[in-house]
């Protein structure tokens, strides 16, 4: 099995004169938790959209789960999971119906759906809420459920776009435990976040400034490199040089 799950070379996206993503290159290994950091407007979302097969790169190349981002977008979509920064399950459907819907979207059979959904609910201690409307759950639970549903089809890579926005510290902690567990089971995690303490949890972190990847290493070595106490400091040092505003 190929050990590199995401491989990107000189990936670029231009909108007219504006270069949103400027020749970024990096590799993500299987089972890694890859932190994708950057200020607002640094180009994170655009880069992520290209990796998800939603946006076509202007130049450069890349593969995700072994498929080309330029030509095999549809295949990529089948092998990745995605959780957006906005809560994106259906509030007027029950927990079970949401799971069944997304399992169906990814082509799971009825039997597989039943097995996996039951198993996931048990792991979350959520079995009693199976017929509860998602809209009536607290936000923390919703986020956990979103994550579980994003991985229901056992994707190679899960893209998490600021998954813990607006969630209390305890739930964030629990959320990261789920991420760790998934990574241990061989799922690669590609996560963007604003919380620099979360960056510390990543296997490796990259920091984007003005469309370019300025730094990429393990949190420990990044701190060493920038002679910083915390990732927060590393981030501030780099972001100070940014030309683009919010």
């Amino acid at each position, binding site marked *: 099995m190929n050990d590199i799950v995401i491989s990107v070379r000189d990936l670029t996206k231009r909108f007219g004169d504006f270069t949103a993503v400027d020749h970024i290159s990096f590799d993500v290994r299987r089972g890694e938790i890859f932190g994708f950091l950057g200020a607002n407007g640094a180009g994170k979302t655009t880069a992520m959209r290209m990796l998800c097969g939603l946006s076509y790169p202007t130049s450069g190349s890349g593969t995700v789960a072994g498929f080309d981002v330029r030509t095999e977008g549809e295949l990529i979509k089948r092998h990745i999971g995605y959780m957006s920064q906005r809560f994106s399950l*259906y509030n007027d459907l029950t927990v079970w119906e949401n799971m069944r819907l997304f399992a*169906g*979207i990814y082509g799971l059979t009825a039997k597989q759906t039943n097995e996996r959904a039951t198993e996931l609910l048990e792991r979350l201690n959520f079995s009693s809420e199976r017929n509860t409307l998602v809209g009536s759950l607290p936000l923390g639970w919703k986020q956990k459920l979103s994550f579980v549903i994003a991985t229901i089809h056992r994707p190679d890579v899960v*893209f998490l776009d600021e998954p813990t926005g607006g969630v209390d510290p305890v739930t964030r902690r629990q959320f990261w435990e789920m991420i760790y567990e998934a990574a241990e089971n061989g799922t690669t995690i590609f996560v963007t976040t604003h919380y620099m303490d979360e960056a510390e949890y990543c296997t490796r972190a990259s920091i984007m400034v003005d469309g370019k990847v300025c730094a990429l290493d393990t949190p420990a070595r990044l701190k060493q490199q920038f002679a910083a106490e915390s990732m927060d400091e590393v981030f501030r040092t780099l972001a100070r040089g940014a030309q683009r505003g919010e």
Partner: protein
Amino acid sequence: MERNFASFVKKESLHILRDTRTMLVVMLIPIILMILFGFAISTEVNNVNVAVVAPERTDGVHDAVERLAQNGYFTFKGYISQNEIDQCLRSGKANAVVVFAQGYDRRAAQAAAGIETKPIIQLIFDASNVNTAGSASAYMQSVLLGTASQQAMFETRMLFNPQMKSAYNFVPGIMGLIFILVCAMMTSVSIVREKEVGTMEVLLVSPVRPVKIIFAKMIPYFAISCIVLVTILLLARYLLGVPMTGGVCGIFSLSLLYLLLSLSLGLLVSTIATTQVAALLISAMVMMMPILMLSGMLFPIENLPIFFQVVSNIVPARWYIDAVRKMMIQGLPIMAVWKNCVILLGMTAVILAVSLKKFKDKLE
């Protein structure tokens, strides 16, 4: 990949079923409208104000007027002159005018003796309320004649609505309106809701093709519209007694085409609007107003100013309502309205093509 399509249709149906209030509104509006238009426009003859034109107030005329005045259903409003007729009807002072000819008595007597033809009594009605005018005319004739020995011929004129367009003229209008409401408005709102809430993003990252997402959304609304269509047709036939001799099949197929057109319109709106409120407003202002005003639903197209007559050509409901009227009320077969069918088909093709193109462009 058929499985994911089925899960989608199921999901959309659940959304609709969970929203009981909207469901009820959609199902009840057509029924309420049908009953309102069918019965609120009363067919009973009640309190018809009558003015009389009589050059000579002879005994025969007096007798006839007396009979009218004493009848509980008619109110005698007095004598007027020939040139006051129009003004009198327009102002609403009278709903009907009875005109006796010169020499009414003499001719009636001669007719009784078999010498002359029968005298003529002209009845002029304000027919903007067709049903009332129709039955009032028949009733008034029998009242005026009184006894069988009285001889007269009637000449009836219906003003303001010469074709005697009847109350069930509203049925096609209601159909033209309701399907736009259910299909276009609800589909667009439901698509835009997903954009607004953020679920659309997740769906786009999934392997489901965007076009499938859209079609899956249309199917439940299409189904609801079909139920509504059957309800309307049943009510029209058995409650309002619309003859529908033109064949239900024709009406049904044409309606299916119109449903498709409405769905495409909904898709088009959803590509323009970014919030649910915007989608609602666009549907209401850009679609409902022209249907109410320019489709011939409320006002006959022939009575509109030329400018609006021209504009009405691009209102799809105009062609639909016109065709359904012809089939439902005049009893024409679908072949007789082929021109409307072709126009609607063309409009559907254009709207669908434009909206699919716009939808795809938006995704980029």
